[in-house]
């Protein structure tokens, strides 16, 4: 028994050097060559960092495309989902009020055109994407508020839609931050 204890202690120490020092340092070194140099890929506007490409941020102004509802208000230091069950009455009321908000700001919108992702909270609370349909239903509003051609906005949406992986696997999505930055670029 005593032998096993001593062997366990020594083995634990040796493995700790290998697994907790050497291994992550190699990964950190390799990660230094990645896009964000290992700190996450940042996006800048006029030389100032305005966000991370992967991390969704809150858009509430009518002249911007809105992202998905977030259970944590897009707090990137405290990710979480709503964990609401599908039959929870309070939750269903919340969804219903999200629908009303969408209809209020997009008067010509029909309920049947609203995709589920625009009225449900994401798993991380930081979802950077919306579905293509989620962007399409906002085009009219954006065009009206920005006083620009609907077609121009629609083209931007198409340009910023990322299709399935290799065109074959998974859903397509739109990165809200990149799309909105592209919108701001239009003005100039």
């Amino acid at each position, binding site marked *: 028994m005593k032998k096993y204890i001593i062997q366990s202690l020594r083995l*634990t120490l040796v493995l700790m050097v290998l697994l907790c020092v050497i291994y*992550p340092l190699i990964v950190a070194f390799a*990660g230094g060559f990645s896009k964000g140099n290992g700190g996450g890929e940042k996006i800048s506007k006029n030389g100032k960092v305005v966000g*991370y490409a992967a991390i969704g941020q809150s858009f509430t*102004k009518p002249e911007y495309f809105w992202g998905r509802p977030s259970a944590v208000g897009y707090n990137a230091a405290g990710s979480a989902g709503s964990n609401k069950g599908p*039959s929870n009455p309070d939750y269903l009321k919340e969804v219903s009020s999200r629908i009303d908000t969408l209809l209020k700001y997009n008067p010509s919108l029909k309920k049947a055109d609203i995709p589920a992702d625009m009225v449900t909270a994401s798993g991380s609370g930081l979802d*950077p994407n919306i579905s293509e349909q989620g962007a399409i239903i906002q085009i009219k509003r954006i065009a009206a508020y920005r006083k620009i051609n609907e077609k121009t906005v629609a083209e931007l949406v198409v340009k910023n839609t990322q299709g399935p*992986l290799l065109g074959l696997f*998974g859903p397509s999505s739109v990165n809200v931050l990149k799309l909105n930055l592209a919108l701001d670029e239009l003005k100039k």
Partner: protein
Amino acid sequence: MNTELLGIVATYLLTLVIAIPLGKYLAKVFAGEKVWTDFLKPIESAIYKLSGINPKEEMNWKQHMKALLTINLVWLVYGFFVLMYQDKLPLNPDGNPGMTPDLSFNTIISFVVNCNLQHYSGESGVTYLTQHFVLMFLQFVSAATGLAAAVVFFKAFRDKTSTKLGNFWEFFVKSITRLLLPLSLVMAIILAFNGSPTSYEAKDQFISVQGDTVNVSRGPAAAFIAIKHLGTNGGGWFGANSTHPLENPNYITNTVELVAQVIIPIAMVIAFGIFIRRRRLAWMIFGVMTIGMLLLLIPTVSSELGGNPAIAKMGISQATGAMEGKEVRFGPAITGYWSTVTTIISTGSVNGMHDSTMPLTGAWQLLGMMINSFYGGCGVGVLNYFIYLIIAVFISGLMVGRTPEFLGHKVEAREVKIAALITLLSPFLILAGTAIASYVFTNHGEAGWAVQPKNWLNNPGFHGFSEMLYEMTSSNANNGSGFEGLGDNNVFWNVASGFVLFLGRFLPIIGPVAIAGLLGSKKYIPESAGTLKTDTLTFSLMTFAVIIVLNALSYFPALALGPLAEYFTMLK
């Protein structure tokens, strides 16, 4: 077929393409035959030398279990204190606090037993030091513990009669140097180049486009996420686990993480067949497991793609499926696949919140964890399956009136008793645990714990019951996923699930290894016309029936009270 379903098919095929050769490789590694990774031998020799281990020393099954329990105990004590005092230790750039004793108790058991149930949130509850030197360390060694136990079990059936079952430390170290570490390294680098952070920098701050100040938690996560999946651990770097855009940035990383968690469980089944020179038996086991997986997967994906009927009633398009708790970049189909995979094997990482999935999906997730052997966790999947096998051998023996035997060894009262006890343990822990929790919730709602029992549940009615049932099931299965709406960071859940975790890990490891050790030491009886063959289609069906009947009898009432009742209420 749409691109989302195609994604599932491609992911599973990619898994097989990697897992099958990996199984062949593992059989050779553990048999000590020549493999291409033998260039790592000097590293292993150095590890043995520094640790005072002689890898040639043969152990019997009891010595194996002693070694296993001793080193696990060392990790428990070490981690418990480090987590409590993490605020006073270095590598804490975000200034996170130490854990309370009950939270530390729960967390350390949870990571030692390869479960990774998390009652803390990664961003605020741990430091870079504890993430790496406690949690990630345990993700490696707990997976290696399971693998080493499985190899001991393999050893018992390799030779006709044997009590010498190799050296525990050797199996354990090789699991790391020849399998977990190299694969983790490759995977972590793939993750890093797809956007998972690797640097030790603290939280970042920026002003968003609309002018909000946003803090971003980061840290060296990529290394952690790799072993989290390869070792079927499942504990996330961030609170939101693999739904978090830095933990799982895109469809490529999603595929990599999905493939990584399944390859070792499948490879171990293949390795078993090659190691004991009975490939047909292994393929039969693989077949039963795969059919079981498909039976859980297909209804899961179908119910998630179908969307939420309550939201459909409001007139909202459900063309994109149920999206609450899910991420747009993955979509509901592959998220459904993930939820099946993560519950049948004991990973417990999530790329969509299980609490918000449809009621029937919840039932399949629970059932996957209750059965816990359709592929199953790293190493332990095969061990769990073996218990069902022994029960099937015993019942078949009774049915045809022959002495039950397995691989040429008589299965007698002692072995069947152990198997029966292990079979009864899971329902006992899950159901008794849930019953106590329900009792406390209804009768002692005002108890002055960190979260008062009346505030435990995030959802009312049947779904609330499911939250408690899920927590106990996940603990017993060493899974680690949760219906995360449950307010679980308080003394009741920390302690209760801590005990369930502990018993649900070590007894189901010791049981099968003991049975194998006992069987292996018995006289070998050559096969004859009177032998009950275990590698036939009939016997596989029998095993499948045993799995279904045992679990249906144990859990149907509980499932009926939770997810099934919720499902039928929603039909109204």
